[in-house]
């Protein structure tokens, strides 16, 4: 299976945007080689601002640029964007609803070798709790490109969540990207698997495994975590009566809680959450960590089977 980096998709999308739109500017915090915005810097040096190692300042500077009509992409690692600069994102960007795009790379446990300090497993939880924030979590290279363009076209704060590693390319998600819309990848009657970000390929694999057991699993990919496509979730709850969510994020405050919260208030439905449990990660290869922390098709499959047998 072909694999490609979502952060590269973002960087390539950014280049296309920059050619079309003079208002697109990029801010970076001394990680342009990692966030891949160095290509942008090479081609558009006048519109690239390296803030040095100062994430807090970058977010507020981005707000200042946006207030004057620019479309700034503030780029850094997810753990810095959400935790180090959380106050600036909240008060300079989300609260006044300023048109800043926060592009956070190195999110999730697949960040790998840098270890727990650099693996943002709580960034979605933080961003979800800020009113006015739109959260996009693309599943692969191509979708990251689409999400980048959609973010720029959208007027308001956006948190674009990207990974570090190369992830499988999934042809099914390469069309019709729309903020707030889920993508139905596979129809099913017995259970629904809702995935976000890079877990889409694992979700599809899990559906195949369930099929071998004669269960028909619906697969929904959720590239927008906020606003959540509640219609797709409610329909899934109504029609399949069981839901398993999968995200490369803590099970606290992410997709799982969003889906469970919505369903329990509307049509109570059993929901199982696959994600990083309430623990910090550690150093390792991305693939090793995804195995160890239970973020694989087999984990989704097992949760689904348990749910199918229970109810």
């Amino acid at each position, binding site marked *: 299976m072909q694999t490609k980096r979502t952060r590269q998709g973002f960087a390539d999308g950014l280049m296309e945007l920059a050619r079309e739109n003079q208002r697109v*500017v990029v801010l970076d915090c001394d990680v342009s080689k990692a966030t891949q915005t160095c290509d942008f810097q090479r081609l558009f040096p*006048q*519109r690239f*601002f390296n*803030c*040095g190692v*100062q994430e*807090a*300042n970058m*977010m*507020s*500077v*981005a*707000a*200042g*640029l946006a*207030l*004057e*009509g*620019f479309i700034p992409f503030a780029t850094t690692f997810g753990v810095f964007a959400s935790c180090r600069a959380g*106050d*600036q994102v909240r*008060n*300079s960007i989300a*609260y*006044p*609803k*300023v048109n800043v795009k926060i592009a956070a790379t190195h999110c999730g446990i697949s960040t790998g070798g840098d270890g727990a300090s650099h693996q943002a497993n709580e960034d979605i939880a933080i961003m979800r709790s800020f009113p006015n924030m739109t959260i996009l979590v693309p599943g692969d290279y191509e979708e990251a490109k689409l999400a980048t363009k959609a973010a720029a076209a959208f007027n308001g704060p956006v948190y674009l969540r990207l990974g570090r590693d190369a992830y499988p390319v999934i042809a099914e998600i390469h069309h019709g990207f729309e903020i707030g819309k889920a993508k139905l990848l596979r129809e099913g009657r017995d259970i629904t698997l809702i995935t976000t970000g890079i877990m889409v390929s694992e979700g599809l694999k899990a559906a195949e495994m369930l099929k071998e057991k004669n269960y028909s699993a619906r697969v929904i990919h959720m590239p927008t975590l906020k606003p959540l496509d509640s219609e797709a979730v409610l329909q899934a709850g109504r029609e399949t009566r069981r839901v398993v969510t999968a995200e490369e994020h803590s099970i606290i405050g992410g997709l799982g809680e969003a889906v469970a919260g919505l369903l329990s208030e509307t049509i109570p439905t059993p929901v199982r959450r696959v994600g990083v449990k309430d623990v910090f990660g550690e150093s390792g290869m991305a693939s090793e960590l995804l195995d160890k922390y239970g973020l694989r098709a087999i984990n989704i499959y097992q949760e689904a089977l348990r749910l199918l047998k229970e109810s």
Partner: protein
Amino acid sequence: MALAWRASLKIWRQSPAGGRTYSIDRCFCCFCFGRDSQNVKEAPRPLLLAGIIHRMPTHGVKTLPMLDREEHRFFRQKAFEIRKSILEMVYKARSGHVGGSLGSADLVVALYYYLMRHNPSEPEWPDRDRFILSKGHCTPVIYAVLADCGYFPREGLNHFRRPGSHLQGHPYEPGTPGIDASTGTLGLGISTGVGMALAAKLQSRSHYVYILCGDGEIQEGQVWEAALFGNKYHLDNVIAFVDRNYLQTDGNSEQVMPLDPLASKWEAFGWRTYEIEGHNFDQIVSTVEQAKQLKGKPTMIIARTIKGKGVSFMENEVSWHGTPPNQEQFERAIKELTLAD
């Protein structure tokens, strides 16, 4: 770099005889005492005593008596009205920051009624000068001024800090005409300000971005991040103030977290730095006018002020940082202001 520009800067001093000014080689402010001005950075900075702040000569600033008697009268009258509004607003809301608002009133008055290019009937005019209240808790002063300028009806001031009001406790840009940036947590404003100044450069606009910071505020690390940023991009369209009243919520700033020698800190960060008396309209105006002439660097004006200025029992009293006056105190304060006027 800081030494180089200081050596080349012509230093002016007001003649003791009156209106005439003359050029001198040395600075005779109470820090320098006529010593070689290159040694300014090493000069001792004694803690300012409340009583001498307003008598302190300006360090290294060309002080020209630019304002005539009529203008002085106008400024005094405006400052009186604004201080009165501040007290009324905080008294009615039973909440708000009165000390810093009274203390910075003269700075904000000088900016909005003299120095800034702005148009209350067109708050979004792209070429207006921006003003960012980085010490966001002092909303009473900016709301009083904006209402007086006509950005919104004065009646709105009665609803300050009330549910449904567009006058929030801290500046909220989308809600209030004339507010250029949302601030609140300290340090945000100066960063947003340098961002707006960078935008102005990119758009080849000639307006200025004025930023008002508190002295307690600049203990925030983010302020110094913004300082580095302003220096890197040569944002000479930034003119920032520190409202230097030596007081913050928990007491004297030099005890809570020392900031002195403050001017040399800013100079070391590459900002052209002035120290002025923040209740002296001549100094405020002439310093800003001078800052506009000099290119290549952002400007920081350390304005020595008296927290609670204008009301004797609030002056230099840290307890008036965020406490509203009761009825008796309010009436006494208004009476004092009126008598002084």
